């Protein structure tokens, strides 16, 4: 890039520079940056003749020599471009610059005459990002980085309460059976202690006119080995998407599991608190407390679920046509859910009702 200086008349602080082989792309961007410097009185550029590939750049500052201002401006522009390249891509920025400069030069079409904000227009000059746009280009800053962590903005009232820290335990939400629609709520409470385990990924195929369409179904179990368990299924065209989706669904279906003792109450609870049964169809599944060291004596799926929930020992007994696997599994899940529904003697004492999280807090 060749730069030369025109003969100056007002001293080293006011100068016009001539850029060879440059035009609006550089001129407008550089002008935007340099005008913001406090010391600069005036900054502008012009392309004296469209046939000549030259650009005149004028800087008038109060005290700093114009050359210093120009150097600083060029450095800042380079920094800005580097940052944008990371998130936006070089070409997109340059094209946006070119677009801005053409808009700056030509009178805005459509007759809005510079009134900004006409985003409701279709087919006319939108006026957005035009000459009056005050940093309106949020698109630039937002970037295309889909992988970076976006901060969670809750959509439900419960989400807002959780994010503001007004709810101290996940158990308060369970106590009032409030529906959890955002998985970030579970993440907030249990996040670091949750382990997810992919149970199975299987390709499923659907017959279409144009052959077969294969998708992948992922089963993921999630638990913190301390009383919470969830299971999620997701089907998707890609393996990674299916697993990610299944993890989210598993988090949404997290259930509390109550544990108790078999005999003497030494150490931590290790088994189900009492004999619980779940029933579905003709199948009844019974979970029976077991002494320490027994391990989980059951079919593979409930075994995995109970392990991740933190139950260490358990006997199971099933009756009915357990060949219907669907009913068998549902019955086991029902039995696990019942651990908290069972009224054991230690709960006989009257516990005063606590207020729902919604009504507990009064506005200040």
């Amino acid at each position, binding site marked *: 890039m060749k730069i030369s200086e025109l003969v100056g008349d007002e001293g080293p602080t006011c100068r016009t520079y001539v850029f060879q082989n440059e035009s609006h792309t550089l001129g407008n961007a550089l002008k935007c940056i340099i005008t913001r410097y406090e010391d600069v009185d005036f900054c502008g550029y012009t392309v004296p003749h469209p046939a000549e590939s030259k650009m005149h750049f004028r800087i008038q500052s109060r005290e700093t020599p114009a050359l210093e201002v120009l150097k600083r401006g060029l450095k800042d522009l380079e920094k800005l471009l580097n940052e944008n390249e990371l998130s936006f891509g070089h070409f997109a920025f340059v094209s946006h610059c070119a677009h801005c400069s053409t808009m700056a030069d030509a009178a805005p079409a459509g007759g*809005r*005459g*510079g*009134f*900004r*904000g*006409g*985003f*409701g*227009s*279709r*087919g*006319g000059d939108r006026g*957005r990002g035009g000459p*009056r746009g*005050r940093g*309106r280009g*949020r*698109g630039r800053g*937002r970037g295309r980085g889909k992988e970076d962590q976006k901060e*969670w903005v*809750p*959509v*439900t*009232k419960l989400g*807002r309460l959780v994010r503001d820290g*007004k709810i101290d335990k996940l158990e308060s939400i369970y106590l009032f059976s409030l*529906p959890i*629609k*955002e998985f970030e709520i579970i993440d907030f409470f249990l996040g670091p202690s949750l382990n997810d*385990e*992919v*149970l*199975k*990924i*299987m*390709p499923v195929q659907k017959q279409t006119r144009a052959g077969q*369409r*294969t998708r992948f179904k992922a*089963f993921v179990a999630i638990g913190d080995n301390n009383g919470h368990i969830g*299971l*999620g*299924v997701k089907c998707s*065209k*890609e*393996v990674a998407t299916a697993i990610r989706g299944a993890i989210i*669904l598993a988090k949404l*279906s997290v259930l509390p599991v109550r544990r108790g003792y078999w005999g003497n109450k030494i150490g931590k609870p290790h088994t189900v608190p009492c004999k619980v049964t779940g029933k579905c169809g003709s199948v009844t599944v019974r979970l029976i407390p077991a002494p320490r060291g027994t391990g989980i004596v059951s079919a*593979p*799926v409930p075994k*995995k*679920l109970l392990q991740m929930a933190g139950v260490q020992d358990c006997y199971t007994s099933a009756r009915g046509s357990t060949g219907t*696997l*669907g009913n068998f*599994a549902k019955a086991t899940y029902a039995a696990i*859910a019942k651990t908290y529904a069972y009224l054991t003697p230690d709960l006989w004492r009257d516990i005063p009702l606590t207020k729902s999280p*919604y*009504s507990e*807090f009064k*506005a200040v």
Partner: protein
Amino acid sequence: MTAQKVDIGFLEERDNWLLHPKFFPSKVGGKPAWLDLKNLPHPNELTCKKCSEPLIFLCQIYAPYEERTDAFHRTIFLFVCRNGVCCQTNASDNFLVLRCQLSRQNDYYSHEPCEEIESQAFSMDKWPNLCNVCGTRAPSHCAKCKKTYYCSRKHQVLDWQKGHKAMCSELQTLDSYKPNNFKVTQAGKALLFKEWELIVDEEDEDDPKNVDENEEMEKLRKLMQEKRAGTLSNVSEDELEQYTKAQPEDKVFNKFSKRINRHPDQVLRYDRGGQPLWITSNTGSCVDDIPNCQYCGGERQFELQMMPQLLNFIDVGIELNSIDWGVLVVYTCKSSCNQGPAYKQEFLTKQDLSN
């Protein structure tokens, strides 16, 4: 032919002087920056249908119609009742939508856009007075100093307690009193929402990924080799399937979540003539009876919707009964007629996430 892109609104902080009506802002909270400064709506219009308290300003969106010359400037205003009890599931009695439009040549603003200079004055002397607290039209004034105006008794009392008491006697003698037409006063801070500017941008496109099935099968085979594809691979699908999802799946909410994930902090979706993005599946009750425009008799169409993320930015309190919504869907006159009063009522429907 590409589908129409949806415009998304975000909130940013901005100096109050930049949100003056002469700049035709889109904003949330604070006082309304009226468009037609003379024919303002009367305070009777701006009362809650449930509790009869004055409504406060929620947001305004500057959305001109290119096709009509008399809608060169066009703004849609939303008002809401501050009282949380009035907010009921799937009912929109505590909201009010007003639409106002002007041609480019009008009595209030210049033909050309205004320069963005803080000190440039804009005279409001010719136009009706605005309430010191909430910024709506103010027929009554303080009997003592005669210089502060109020829209209702309630706001007068509020202002008296929150600072006018101290200033009233001074104001009586002060000659050059400049009313706080669009600036939020001490009393206003307690009542009104926090002031933000609403910036509108295009929604990001969803890149349709061309998935190669064979590639994905390869990935799966690799995972299986590394033994990461599933610890219970030998269990049948049916058995696993039956464990999942005791709750019925809300497909509409899933679609909603996926769409807003492109811009999690969006507060407005603008798509004139398009379809709203519902938040849950019971849309039937909302869409059945969209009334026709009461001024011209023409049809109404979907124009914009406010998203629940807006509630994060304004302070609505966390009580059991506080202002809450799933989505607020606004339908406006399709032809943006200019009949009737300057501020025309439009239709709003609220969809909640039912429990």
